[in-house]
């Protein structure tokens, strides 16, 4: 979809981008990351010709971007800017409709599209259409910025630290919303950030840059597992093992869970057990099969296997959802002091469990020292 071929960009004697070659596949989110001045924003701006390369070429769908009129090219590429960049003199609807207006859509079609997009980003069109950017919160403005970029339904989206100006709590919400949106829209996204957690959360591939060069281009889990060099190792941090867990979903790593009813649980306090293998926690469910408590095996006594007394549990505190990350599962495991946590659905039913031992194993197989 997008390909860089030996691209060099000089900037007043400095080399901002130094002979970069890589490609981005259709419908993937590629995150460019690195310390400030590493050339990531410059690289992004070479795609829609906000900047021109000093040498080398950038291809879009196999055609050099230099073969398009710059304005035509940009109207076909969604662009979300660092400082939001909403037009302060235009209403939300006018902001979102600007590219359709430039490509001369009819008014009625523009208005329909604007309302559709406001719905998509979760802002009620009737309430927000006529507002001005100064009346929006940071998070709302940022969503409108995304809607504006999507207005003419471009296949490619460029995002330059789009959530950088938002406070951390809102930023996470925006990231999750964007991830959900992207699952629906399947755009080819090039995303610039200096926030590693953001990159891990959103990226299909990350490109780690420094001084205009690409140090590593890989899936986030792979980068965290085996950093290409000392700089990347330091950049991803000493807690990379923990960060890496954020790349895995609970749903892909859960095991079958043992569930029993409350009645059965009364007879399980003492139970002979022959094999010395894994003694699972017994998750106790009510008549609707919703989690209500557990029986935890007493590990110190081998035989006969004994269970500690029944413990009542709050599903919201102990359970994790299938879509959660293993990092969250681990934090629940440590927080509750258990060896496993149940995976539950919206109704509180037990779908399976995530075990500490599995997380440890996953960690050991991936990470290089």
């Amino acid at each position: 979809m997008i390909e860089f071929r030996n691209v060099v960009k000089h900037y007043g004697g400095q080399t901002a981008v130094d002979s970069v070659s890589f490609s981005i596949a259709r419908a993937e989110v590629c995150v460019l990351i690195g310390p400030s001045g590493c050339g990531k924003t410059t690289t992004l701006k070479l795609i829609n010709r906000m900047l021109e390369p000093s040498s080398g070429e950038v291809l879009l769908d196999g055609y050099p971007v230099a073969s398009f009129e710059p304005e035509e090219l940009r109207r076909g590429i969604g662009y979300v800017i660092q400082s939001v960049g909403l037009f302060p003199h235009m209403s939300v609807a006018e902001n979102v409709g600007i590219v359709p207006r430039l490509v001369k859509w009819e008014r009625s079609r523009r208005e329909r599209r604007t309302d559709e997009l406001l719905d998509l980003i979760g802002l009620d069109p009737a309430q927000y259409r006529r507002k001005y950017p100064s009346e929006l919160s940071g998070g709302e403005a940022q969503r409108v910025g995304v809607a504006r970029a999507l207005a003419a339904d471009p296949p490619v989206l460029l995002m330059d630290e789009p959530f950088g100006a938002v406070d951390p709590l809102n930023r996470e919400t925006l990231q999750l919303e964007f991830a959900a949106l992207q699952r629906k829209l399947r755009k080819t996204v090039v995303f610039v950030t200096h926030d590693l957690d953001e990159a891990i959360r959103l990226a299909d591939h990350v490109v780690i840059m420094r001084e205009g060069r690409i140090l590593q281009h890989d899936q986030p889990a792979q980068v965290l597992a085996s950093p290409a060099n000392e700089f990347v190792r330091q950049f991803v941090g000493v807690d990379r093992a923990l960060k890496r867990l954020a790349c895995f979903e609970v749903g892909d790593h859960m095991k079958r869970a043992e569930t029993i009813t409350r009645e059965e649980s009364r007879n399980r306090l003492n139970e002979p057990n022959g094999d010395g293998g894994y003694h699972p926690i017994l998750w106790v469910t009510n008549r609707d099969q919703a989690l209500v408590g557990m029986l935890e095996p007493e590990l110190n006594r081998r035989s006969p296997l004994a269970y500690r007394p029944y413990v009542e549990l709050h599903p919201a505190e102990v359970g994790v959802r299938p879509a959660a990350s293993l990092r969250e599962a681990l934090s629940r495991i440590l927080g509750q002091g258990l060896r496993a946590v149940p995976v539950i659905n919206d109704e509180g039913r037990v779908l399976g469990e995530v075990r500490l031992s599995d997380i440890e194993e996953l960690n050991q197989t991936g990470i290089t020292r």
Partner: protein
Amino acid sequence: MKRIGAFVLPVLLVAGFSVFVWSEGVRELVLRSMFPGRISYIYERVTLARLLSQHVALVAVSSGLAAAVGVALGVFVTRPIGRDFHPIVQDISSVAQTFPPVAVLALAVPAIGFGFAPSIVALFVYSILPVINNTISGLDSVDPAVIEASRGMGMKRGQILWLTELPLAARVIFAGIRTSLVINIGTATVGAVVGAGGLGTVIVSGLVRDNSAYVFTGAATAAFLAFGLDFVIGRIQNRLYDARSD
């Protein structure tokens, strides 16, 4: 109540002013009460209404030219091709305002002759500075991120100017035109010296003949014109920008 007051007061003022200008009887009554004595109260040679219309014409032509040329110059020197002229244009227009208008007239008369034209030149030169200055600072104050966004959305140069820069700078540019207009209404009285007519005629005549009523007639009418126009432009500005709470 407040709304009605805001509407009624200007209407009353305009009505009173019109009567003062058009009804010589009323004007004589007013002036006689202010300047008792044995003097002439009504300027005989030209009607006040005619002087007023000459004055408005002087101001309209000179300010119109100043606004058009000033905005155009301001836009030109903030474009990439005109950047080099940015300091020169600003210097020249600053110097222009340091000349007293009478001096500009004195210089213009030998070149253009007596009458309407030299006054227009003097007023134009004198009032273009606030327009240029405000156009430049209005355009310069547009957030670069917004211009970057305009480029990123695929706007061409002209579209960036018309859709982004001018609307965002409009408030400041308008303020410049408003200032230049109000300055001009006062300064245009000087035009009488070179025979351009206008309200200055009756003032000059009053000064020459030591007739305070004449001086007051011209000065008050010009002052009212200035206040009135300033008020109207202010209302237009509010109408344009209030909806937008920015």
